């Protein structure tokens, strides 16, 4: 005969549908989000990993100032003990007109030959067949609002867009491999036929050579060893041949290739951490609800135990329904995860990165993490909690003597306080464990909510700060030292421009390496106000940007070291001044000091600051410009972050509110249920619903509001540490910023969300049966 107690399951589910529904929705939602992101992420990572072989992705590339001879290429291939195959991947780079914004296109010839590296994945349309056809990177086209069939003009030539592609060496369209961030709107890539590519002259060509090792390195550490060795052997060959090395980028350092993989991995780590936090909170909520159920049914349990039911039978009985709900949530969550959420996550990544198409893969890892681990965690916590509760004897259950605090003395409360207030205080004291859990839950929910809410205003604030503290509208870095067309020797007064020297060095902090832009500024600069520390000190004294100072914790008087990236030279500097320049990890010194530090001739310079577009005005020939750093370059990081994780943040905000409401609802419901007899009794005595609300709902309200007010600033504080830790792994620096109104707004969101719950609690009290007190008599 089946255990007759099993017949209670459906009734129990029906009677307490609110509790089980809320738990189900929360768990199913959490599992759906986590499994969706894990499945999408890992399926895309698998496609990305496969693309290495499928698209013959390079192990690295270097750019030379001039085209290398065939002999040199042969030497490059055998230079290192790790033999390489070299493939010329030359590109033309320039501005594209006929687009919604001013954008830079890097154009390659098609890579269809069998030995070609970084073959492209056609996403939509056709590959170019005629000289006037071009395929664009899909995100670049979408962001610039051009579609297949549209025409664009590049370096004076018109092309018709014939397709969208994803290029495996530009999954994330970083213009430079060590840039702070990419922006798929202002920089992108394209493919034309070899004939079309050859028809351009050499003015804008870049001699990039991709290489693959004979044996692919197994990991980044090995790739670094091989890369370092290759660079060491390559440099003498390049310079002996009269050429020079413009850049050297092994795959592991090339963010254009590695960034999406790292970003997806980071997202997954973040989501899994978030899930485990949810599980811990939910497990405690489960334990508290189990405790409350046992208390509620103590007499029944006592009777059943006295009648001969074993502890194990009853523990299994009380374990069954919650586990059924968790299991059902796991199934539904996985179904939603593999369908709706997976597509949402994949779209999010596709909006950010140019990734090859993927096939959804069954993800055992995701299933274990999202379903098996929560199931086991809930099972263990519920089981332990039940075993602990069932330690009491049948008589204890019959007498409802099953709390360890039963015999504790009552805390004395001043009788001058009105009975209603004392009653409320007693409710708070009685339910301290529940309220402690509410506090922790509200804190946790607020952390999620702050995370969801703060990023967008933080990025906007960063963008505003950058805009207001720009040195100038245009910074031109020159290929060669050239004077401006209508400037007089030694004086730039006639045009809005000022020369500067620039060097890129590297700062190291632990394993983290980051480029530092080093500026040499003319005395009494019109564009930046720095102190002149002279040239006499053994350790040069410099001004550092506040971005550098904050990120690497530098203050006035501190000495720090910067290294040359490709040469074995280091420089020590002392911080003399921290200046307000949040847009860049940079240091500044006067021109004389700069030239002395870098052994440059007096009067040397390598670029111009200007608020005028010197190229458009014909003051500076575009062919002399190596790079232009504009306002858009500084805003790349904030814009890309907004695009890539903006949707995720909205999801976090919604989930934060959901977590908040769920925890507060479940725990405040327990407070009401635990006191059902008392509520019923005071109703019988003649208390009005409003008076009862002022005792029971108000007690919870006080705790919730206090929890909100206390935890919102705490959550913001915690978030400032987390965000700083997050940005430590990005080039550049975005300081944490919470707008002044954010915290009050979040308190408002919390209080409004709670008001909804409080409303349901008042309804529950209104509907509380008077018979609850009488039933004990039956």
């Amino acid at each position, binding site marked *: 005969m089946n255990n007759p107690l099993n017949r209670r399951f459906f009734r129990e589910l029906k009677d307490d549908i609110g509790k089980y529904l809320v738990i189900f929705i929360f768990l199913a939602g959490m599992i759906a989000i986590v499994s969706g992101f894990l499945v999408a992420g890992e399926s895309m990572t698998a496609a990305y990993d496969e693309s290495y072989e499928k698209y013959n992705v390079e192990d690295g590339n270097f750019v030379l100032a001039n085209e290398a001879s065939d002999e040199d290429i042969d030497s490059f291939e055998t230079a290192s003990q790790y033999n390489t195959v070299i493939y010329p991947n030359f590109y033309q780079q320039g501005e594209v007109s006929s687009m919604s914004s001013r954008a830079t296109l890097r154009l390659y010839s098609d890579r269809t030959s069998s030995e070609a590296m970084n073959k492209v994945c056609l996403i939509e349309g056709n590959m170019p067949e005629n000289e006037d056809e071009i395929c664009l990177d899909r995100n670049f086209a979408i962001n610039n609002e051009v579609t297949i069939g549209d025409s664009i003009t590049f370096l004076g030539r018109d092309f018709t867009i014939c397709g969208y592609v994803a290029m495996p060496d530009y999954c994330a369209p970083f213009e430079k491999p060590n840039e702070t961030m990419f922006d798929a709107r202002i920089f992108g890539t394209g493919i034309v036929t070899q004939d079309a590519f050859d028809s351009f002259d050499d003015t804008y060509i870049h001699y990039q050579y991709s290489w693959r090792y004979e044996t692919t390195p197994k990991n980044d550490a090995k790739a670094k060893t091989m890369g370092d060795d290759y660079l060491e052997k390559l440099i003498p060959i390049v310079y002996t041949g009269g050429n020079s090395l413009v850049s050297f980028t092994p795959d592991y350092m090339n963010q254009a290739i590695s960034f999406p993989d790292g970003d997806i991995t980071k997202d997954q780590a973040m989501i899994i951490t978030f899930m485990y936090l949810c599980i811990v909170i939910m497990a405690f909520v489960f334990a508290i609800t189990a405790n409350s159920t046992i208390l509620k049914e103590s007499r029944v349990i006592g009777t059943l135990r006295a009648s001969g039911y074993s502890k194990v039978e009853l523990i299994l009985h009380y374990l069954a329904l919650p586990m059924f709900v968790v299991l059902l949530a796991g199934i539904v969550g996985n179904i939603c995860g593999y369908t709706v959420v997976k597509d949402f996550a994949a779209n999010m990544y596709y909006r950010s990165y140019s990734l090859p198409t993927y096939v959804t893969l069954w993800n055992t890892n995701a299933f274990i993490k999202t379903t098996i681990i929560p199931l086991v965690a809930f099972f263990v916590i519920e089981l332990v909690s039940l075993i602990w509760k069932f330690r009491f004897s049948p008589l204890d259950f019959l007498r409802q*003597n099953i709390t360890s605090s*039963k*015999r*504790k*003395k*009552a805390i*004395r*409360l001043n*009788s001058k306080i009105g*009975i*209603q207030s*004392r*009653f409320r205080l*007693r*409710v708070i*004291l*009685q339910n301290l464990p529940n309220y402690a859990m509410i506090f922790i839950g509200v804190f946790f929910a607020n952390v999620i909510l702050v995370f969801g809410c703060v990023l967008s205003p933080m990025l906007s604030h960063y963008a505003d700060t950058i805009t207001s503290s720009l040195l100038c509208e245009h910074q031109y870095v020159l290929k060669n030292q050239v004077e401006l067309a209508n400037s007089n020797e030694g004086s730039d007064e006639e045009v809005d421009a000022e020369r500067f020297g620039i060097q890129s060095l590297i700062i190291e902090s632990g394993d983290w390496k980051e480029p530092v832009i080093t500026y040499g500024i003319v005395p009494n600069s019109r564009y930046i106000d720095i102190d002149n520390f002279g040239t006499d000190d053994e350790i040069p004294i410099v001004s550092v940007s506040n971005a550098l100072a904050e990120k690497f914790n530098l203050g006035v008087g501190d000495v720090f070291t910067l290294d040359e990236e490709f040469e074995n030279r280091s420089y020590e500097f002392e911080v003399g001044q921290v200046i307000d320049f949040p847009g860049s990890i940079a240091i500044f010194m006067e021109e004389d000091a700069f030239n002395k530090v870098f052994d440059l001739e007096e009067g040397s310079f390598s670029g111009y600051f200007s608020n005028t577009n010197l190229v458009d005005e014909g003051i500076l020939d575009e062919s002399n410009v190596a790079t232009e750093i504009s306002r858009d370059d500084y805003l790349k990081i904030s814009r890309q972050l907004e695009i890539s994780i903006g949707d995720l943040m909205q999801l976090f905000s919604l989930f934060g509110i959901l977590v908040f409401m769920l925890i507060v609802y479940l725990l405040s419901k327990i407070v009401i249920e635990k006191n059902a*007899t*008392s509520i019923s*009794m*005071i*109703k*019988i*005595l*003649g*208390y*009005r*619903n409003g008076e009862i609300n002022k005792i029971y709902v108000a007690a919870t309200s006080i705790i919730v509001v206090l929890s909100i007010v206390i935890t919102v600033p705490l959550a913001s504080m915690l978030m400032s540490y987390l965000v700083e830790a997050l940005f430590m792994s990005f080039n550049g620096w975005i300081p944490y910023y919470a707008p002044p109104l954010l915290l009050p707004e979040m308190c408002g969101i919390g209080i409004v969300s709670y008001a909804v719950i409080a409303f349901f609690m008042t309804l529950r009290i209104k509907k509380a049966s*008077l*018979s609850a*007190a*009488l039933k*004990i*008599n039956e």
Partner: protein
Amino acid sequence: MLLEINDIHKKFGSGDSEVQVLKGIDISVEKGELTVLLGPSGSGKSTLLNIIGGIDSADYGYIAINGERTADMSEKALTEYRRKHLGYIFQQYNLIPNLNVKENIEVGAYLSDNSLNVDEVLRTLGLYEHRHKLPNQLSGGQQQRTAIGRAVVKNPDILLCDEPTGALDYNTSKEILQLIESIKTKYGNTIIMVTHNSAIKNMADRVIRLHDGKVRENYVNTNRVAAADLDW
């Protein structure tokens, strides 16, 4: 006449499981009377008490207190009715577990504009020394005394007692009955007490015996004995 109970009918369940618990009860209770409702288990006495208390409703018939019918009252009005006129004492005490003795009594005092002095009630009930204790630190008799204190402190017109000694031993039961008697004497409350202990009828002013949902006996007890002299 303080309380008029007129042709009360009440059934539970429906179809085959329908049980007619009260089959036309007519009773009148005078102010200041101690009425004992006697009857075996299932006779409907607790159901009748709950209908008088406004925590259950009759299918037919009405209850009127000072001419005011409870059947016509909204839920709000019923709350006010209980608040203004009634005190309730249960067999299982139903004290608020997280309030101490004094606070439990103050919960009752809060409801009344002319409540009794809480400390005086505590002394009358012999609970003053225990006023800071929680209910679970008290014996059954002390808990029931606290419940009585909570009911009487608001000085209600009618005190409804549902098996007030049902969970107590002989000596404690007698103590509680004496207390109820002394309260009636001291504060002049009308008391309706449900019990299945027929010995208790001897302390009543009026005895009503219910059987199978009907009044079998209803008489004024002319041979009242003091609660202290009861024996069973």
